[in-house]
């Protein structure tokens, strides 16, 4: 049973069309990667789901219900949370304050709270009173993920978790992702870095120029097919 679906989802920036009809499904407990070159529409797709861009009411369904007309804060309450590209932490707040803000409008029950987020990222507990701007890039990414988890989402939307991070930090972040998955959270993972995305994904969609150019299970997708789906060559 799909927990999140889009049907012919289109999105625009002004009259610049960024998505040309994306049909997509995410099952409960599943991790799905969205891959593709820059400009393919991956981040736009997440923003449209999260309610940060205008979209058609029936183009996004969550738990069988049309959510395309809902504002972003209502969507968070339903159990969909975005970890935005570039972290976007509240720079005037401490680590813990950033996490607490994430619980605003939280869904009632669920596994995530300050204690469990700190168990997932122990370094954040050590640095709980530190200003978010004083953290390393990897630690900031952990705060961004933790902040999203604090709303106890059923679906976590992750935008470019590995961007600008050292390989060893990326490994830690992806290890945490496996943990999050264990808790039953479904994940949509936007990544340019194929190796990491494919290592955790149950399925993948490749986008090109705002359209789905390829989809399937990672082991069924050959490198040649992915290359073609990235560049249209």
């Amino acid at each position, binding site marked *: 049973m799909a927990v999140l679906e889009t049907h012919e989802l289109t999105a625009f920036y002004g009259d610049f*069309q960024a998505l040309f009809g994306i049909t997509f499904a995410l099952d409960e407990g599943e991790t799905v990667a969205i891959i593709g070159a820059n*400009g393919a529409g991956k981040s736009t797709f997440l923003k449209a789901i999260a309610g940060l861009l205008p979209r058609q009411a029936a183009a996004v369904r969550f738990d069988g219900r049309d959510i395309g007309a809902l504002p972003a804060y209502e969507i968070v309450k339903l159990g969909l949370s975005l970890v935005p590209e570039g972290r976007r932490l509240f720079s005037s707040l401490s680590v813990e304050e950033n996490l607490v803000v994430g619980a605003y409008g939280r869904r009632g029950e669920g596994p995530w709270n300050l204690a469990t987020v700190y168990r997932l990222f122990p370094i954040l507990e050590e640095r709980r009173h530190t200003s978010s701007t004083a953290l390393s890039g990897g630690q900031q990414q952990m705060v961004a993920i933790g902040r999203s988890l604090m709303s106890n989402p059923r679906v976590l939307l992750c935008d470019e978790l590995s961007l600008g991070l050292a390989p060893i930090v990326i490994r830690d972040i992806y290890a945490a992702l496996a943990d999050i998955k264990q808790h039953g959270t479904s994940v949509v993972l936007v990544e340019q870095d194929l190796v990491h995305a494919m290592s955790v994904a149950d399925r993948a969609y490749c986008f090109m120029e705002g359209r789905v150019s390829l989809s399937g299970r990672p082991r069924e997708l050959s490198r040649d097919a992915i290359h073609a789906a990235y560049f*249209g060559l």
Partner: protein
Amino acid sequence: MILTLDNLTRSFGSLKAVDGVGLEVAAGEALGIIGPNGAGKTTLFNLITGLLRPDAGAIRFDGRDITQASPRARCTAGIGRSFQIPHPFENLTVFENLLVAAIHGRRQREAQVVDACGVILERTGLIGFANRRAGTLNLLGRKRLELARALAGSPRLLLLDEIAGGLTEAECSELVELVQAIKQSGVTIVWIEHIVHALVAVVSRLVVLNFGRKIIEGEPRSVMASAEVSEIYMGIAA
């Protein structure tokens, strides 16, 4: 060579946006530039057109060192460009927008450029929109106008910055045909574009930038099939 970049370098604070880039473009050639976001592509154009000055390196256009020349001098010397985000004069008509570009780009009087502007409007498919306010154009119209304004200065070198995004397939093919026609007319083209198949339909050589550096250049299809491109775009070795 109509354009030569020699060890061009430009930093913003501690970020080296363009890092020792060397490049030669032959007259009449069409060259494509690709690279991830932040690779330094637009900064490179800003250096070539003089909107930014390099920290090091030199730019030669048509045998002349233009490294210290003003943007206006470069424009009148024959370098035209389109911007990634078109900013026409919204309250002027399409034709008036073109006149402004032609008068200033060629340093000629209005009477001398009117005919040329009409020709450009025809070539770019805008003749039917000549008297429309530029602010009322849709995306394809604005992209065409951006191209038309760049052509109005009658450039010998045309720099195109991401003109194919956000279009339908039919619109994209139309745009490709237009760029092909501009190339056929003898204008040298350097084109930054994410839509690789559009680029490959026009250019005979492709350069890949990443983190400000030139990573690889060569025949487009072999560049796209290279290990470097797979590594940069997909994080895997081919």
